[in-house]
């Protein structure tokens, strides 16, 4: 589950923009340009997105939506669909009432999009809670939903999360939901592998924040850390209001822990725990997930005290060779300061949708299919078969709709910033 | 006079024989919708001991609480030294010089005897006179000197009554209101307490006291009021009431 706070743009990304702006001339996206036999295509195709673009999510959701828009603009420029025009409907699932992403509004948006016969595919949503509300609606309408950011494993893998009934999210039994980001099972496995192999940790003390995301991630970490050969000394779940972890950290010291894993978001204690480790003299390494890669960490553990923690998150694609071309592409249409880590994910998600649309049109002899339902189902079939090299790397989907690309950024804290030190391929899970 | 029924004029009490210190005029008090006092009018002259007698629930305690400001009258006036006081707060009334040893003694049970007396003198700053007043209380009640460091809640009933009276004395009041000073005490103690009340009065303190022990009260008081169901049934000099057959029958068990 994505929450607002753990999706705050990574500071490193902003700093990086300056470097990358001097970058390469790659057109990016690894796609063919031109109409490809669709020169005679007439009519229009409508695609949409549903992201939280106001309130507390404005920065992160807006930056992601800009990535989606960049993909639409690029496709329009290069006449991806030949003579056919591309219409784009952006929807915002952040409600005034909640001041952030709102599952109820997401469901309303999805009803509006699915009842519009012109719409053939939707990029979104951003938050797993919204996905749970939208997925059954899209599934019944046979509409593609392609998320750039949901990480809750329960959305795709039945039985992976006790609090999510995966089968009820796909009432027709068909997979219509895909995502181009890894899920938290992969993240847990990745965190375990990094902890065991790179940080040489053997005895872990695990704390989670009792929330769906944090507990889920911590559980997966525990499972894979044990599989890797490590020992889990203890796994405690503390409410998000906990401000004093010294009792647990002292216990961890007594047990001889060499790693402290925190499953949770920064608002629930990532930085507090790290600073209190020093207070009680616990010298173990600190590892956490994407919820910790958040400026809030340095508010709670400021100065040099905050240095030396590790956490995984979405890789900063613009730092990789595949993603190097994204920054100039984005900056051509949008202010660089609005770019977030998820912007290239937004771009690639929409590009995958448009590539699938193109393939359907080609199959249909260069004409827009008249039957909306069969058009939508053909788009889904093409997405399922995607083999795509995007800014975020190579993307294929498994039978559940999950990406097979398990690339993570390993971030470390230094000087009040999270800096990506490497991109790690997580083990297959 | 004594053979005739006593005059009952609640609205206009008989012309005071001495200069009045306290005067109640037509006091009505309600507890919720229940009327507790009906047009109570009485006066207490300077230097007098006045008794308020009557059966349980007649409104005696309510009358004293009204004078002290613990209960607000719905109608009527309480005047102390010719100034209305019924609008004042209880603590302001206490500071004017009205000491009240309330029903049930109401000691600060987790404070020492000495601290209870201190509280009685709470509003006073005149340290020299204060020391004299402690001395006066300890002279009247030598037991309290012995027990001054003891918690008031641990004292016997008689000793607690002494503390209650002593505490009221510590405010150096001009008027003392005593609510059932003899309740629950042995006859010897009752006699002792009343001896002290007379001494306090002899020192110049005016006393208004409530008693169910009407005989004791009427023997001590100069004048008395008899209350029945929230109003004054009869009043007059204590000696006359002692001789009144009705009073004898109703309150003296004769």
């Amino acid at each position: 589950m994505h929450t607002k706070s753990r999706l705050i743009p990574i500071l490193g990304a902003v700093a990086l923009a300056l470097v990358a702006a001097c970058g390469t001339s790659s057109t990016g996206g690894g796609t063919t340009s031109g109409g490809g036999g669709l020169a005679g295509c007439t009519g229009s195709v409508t695609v949409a997105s549903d992201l939280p673009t106001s309130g507390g999510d404005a920065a992160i959701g807006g930056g992601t939506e800009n990535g989606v828009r960049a993909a639409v603009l690029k496709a329009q420029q290069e006449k991806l669909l030949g003579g056919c025009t591309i219409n784009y409907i952006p929807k915002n699932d952040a409600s005034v009432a909640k001041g952030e992403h709102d599952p109820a509004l997401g469901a309303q948006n999805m009803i509006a999009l699915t009842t519009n016969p012109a719409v053939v595919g939707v990029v979104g949503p951003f938050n797993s809670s919204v996905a749970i509300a939208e997925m059954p609606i899209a599934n019944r309408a046979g509409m593609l939903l392609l998320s750039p950011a949901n990480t809750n494993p329960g959305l795709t893998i039945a039985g992976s999360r006790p609090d999510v009934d995966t089968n009820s999210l796909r009432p027709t039994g068909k997979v219509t939901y895909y995502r181009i980001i890894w899920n938290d099972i992969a993240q847990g496995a990745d965190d375990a592998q990094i902890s065991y192999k790179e940080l040489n940790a053997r005895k872990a003390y695990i704390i989670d924040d009792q929330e769906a995301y944090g507990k889920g991630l911590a559980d997966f970490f525990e499972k894979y850390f044990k599989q890797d050969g490590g020992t889990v000394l203890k796994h405690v779940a503390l409410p998000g209001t906990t401000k004093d972890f010294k009792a647990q950290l002292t216990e961890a010291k007594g047990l001889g822990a060499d790693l402290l894993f925190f499953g949770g978001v920064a608002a629930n204690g990532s930085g507090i725990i790290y600073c209190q480790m020093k207070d009680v003299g616990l010298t173990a390494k600190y590892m956490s997930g994407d919820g910790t890669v958040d400026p809030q960490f340095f508010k709670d553990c400021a100065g040099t005290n905050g240095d030396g923690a590790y956490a995984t998150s979405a890789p900063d694609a613009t730092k990789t060779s595949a993603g190097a071309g994204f920054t100039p592409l984005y900056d051509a249409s949008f202010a660089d300061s609005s770019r977030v880590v998820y912007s290239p994910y937004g771009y690639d998600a929409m590009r995958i949708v448009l590539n699938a649309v193109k393939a359907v049109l080609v199959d249909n002899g260069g004409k827009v299919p008249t039957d909306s339902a069969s058009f939508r189902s053909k788009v889904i079939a093409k997405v399922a078969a995607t083999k795509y090299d995007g800014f975020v790397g190579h993307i294929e989907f498994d039978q559940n709709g999950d990406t097979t690309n398990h690339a993570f950024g390993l971030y470390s804290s230094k000087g009040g910033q999270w800096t990506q030190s490497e991109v790690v391929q997580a083990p297959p899970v | 006079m004594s053979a005739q029924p006593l005059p009952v004029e609640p609205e206009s009490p008989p012309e005071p024989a001495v200069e009045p210190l306290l005067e109640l005029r037509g006091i009505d008090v309600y507890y919720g919708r229940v009327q507790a006092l009906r047009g109570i009018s009485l006066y207490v002259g300077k230097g007098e001991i006045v008794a308020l007698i009557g059966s349980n629930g007649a409104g005696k305690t309510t009358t004293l609480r009204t004078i002290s400001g613990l209960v607000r009258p719905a109608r009527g006036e309480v005047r102390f030294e010719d100034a209305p006081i019924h609008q004042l707060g209880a603590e302001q009334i206490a500071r004017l010089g009205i000491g009240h040893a309330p029903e049930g003694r109401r000691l600060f049970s987790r404070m020492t005897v000495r601290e209870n007396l201190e509280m009685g003198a709470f509003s006073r700053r005149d340290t020299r006179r204060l020391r004299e007043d402690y001395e006066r209380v300890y002279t009247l009640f030598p037991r309290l000197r012995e027990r001054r460091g003891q918690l008031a809640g641990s004292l016997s009933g008689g000793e607690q009554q002494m503390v209650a009276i002593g505490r009221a004395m510590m405010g150096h009041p001009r008027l003392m209101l005593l609510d059932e000073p003899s309740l629950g005490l042995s006859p010897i103690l009752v006699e002792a307490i009343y001896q002290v009340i007379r001494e306090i009065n002899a020192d110049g303190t005016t006393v208004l006291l409530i008693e169910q022990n009407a005989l004791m009260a009427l023997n001590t008081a100069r004048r008395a009021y008899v209350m029945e169901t929230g109003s004054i049934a009869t009043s007059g000099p204590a000696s006359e009431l002692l001789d009144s057959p009705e009073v004898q029958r109703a309150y003296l068990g004769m």
Partner: protein
Amino acid sequence: MAQKTTDAAAVLPPGRQPRLDALRLRLLPQLTARAFPIILVTALVGMFLRIATTSGGEIAGEQLKNGLQIGAIYALIALGYTMVYGIIELINFAHGDVFTLSAFYAILFGQLFGFFGLNVTTLAPSSAGGLIACLLLLFPITMLAAGITGVLIERVAYRRLRQSPRLAPLITAVGVSFLLEGVMFAKFGAANYPARKDGWVHGTAFTAGGVPVRWNDVLVLSTALGLMFALQAFVRGSRLGKAMRATAQDRDAALLSGININRTIAATFFIGSALAGAGALVYSIYYNSVQWNLGFRYGIIAFTAAVLGGIGNIVGAGLGGFLIGVISVFGSQLLGGEWENSIVFAMLIIVLTFRPVGLLGMRVPDRA
């Protein structure tokens, strides 16, 4: 009389009922009065030894220190609960939020000094003298602001309801609590708010039995102990303190003694809130961040501490705070941290069931 059968007599042989009453009313309180502290101390020692055998004596010692340190904060908050309850029998649910608000005051005053050219965030860590100067500035001003907040709350929300049924001010207290939390949420946001007191008090003061005691532990503990004893001396010895005790014990009698009840109750709120303010300042130095909803949990745990110690009893509240701190820390190592709140509230239930007057609660016959 033999024909008169009461319900109890129908079940019990004649003579049993009074004896049962005696058992319940006299024997049980006596028994629990003696047994309760013994059981509590035995449990604490047992927990300590258990930790010492599994994790080593030093860890057990450190956990004891952790418990005392967090307990010191609970104690400072509990004092306000117990004072207010003692005097007007109100569980002032807003008290925990006064604590949080005061922590924000401490942060804002630091910023305010900066506005006038005195940068406390750099002055305090510069030297011992600078730190002491900052503390000497911040303690009184934070406590004053906290105290005024408490007085305002009493004046606006509770005074008019003093004669109302007890539920009315209780609900109001909950309302005030929500109001304060809402204000803090709106003003300072949902996230932890940095206190900017990095490195104010740092370093190890001394090592006792292998347990390093840091200066900030010393600060928290000495603040709590110092203020507790100061408060106790104040309430015992001063005129106002005695007026508070008198008002707490018998409001009418206090009025008859010429004590201004309104002023005394206001003073009680002032002092209780000021103590929470002192706790909030040391909290902000120790933890270096504050969150808008902190007061709920701290308030309710501190309230439990006050009940454990004997509500209305100042020494009891202090003792209860330290005990709850130690019990929750020991318990969370032995049972797991997720049980911490459960342990605290189990304590509350046990106390309320078996010894409602608390550890130091007194039972002096009121009107013998």
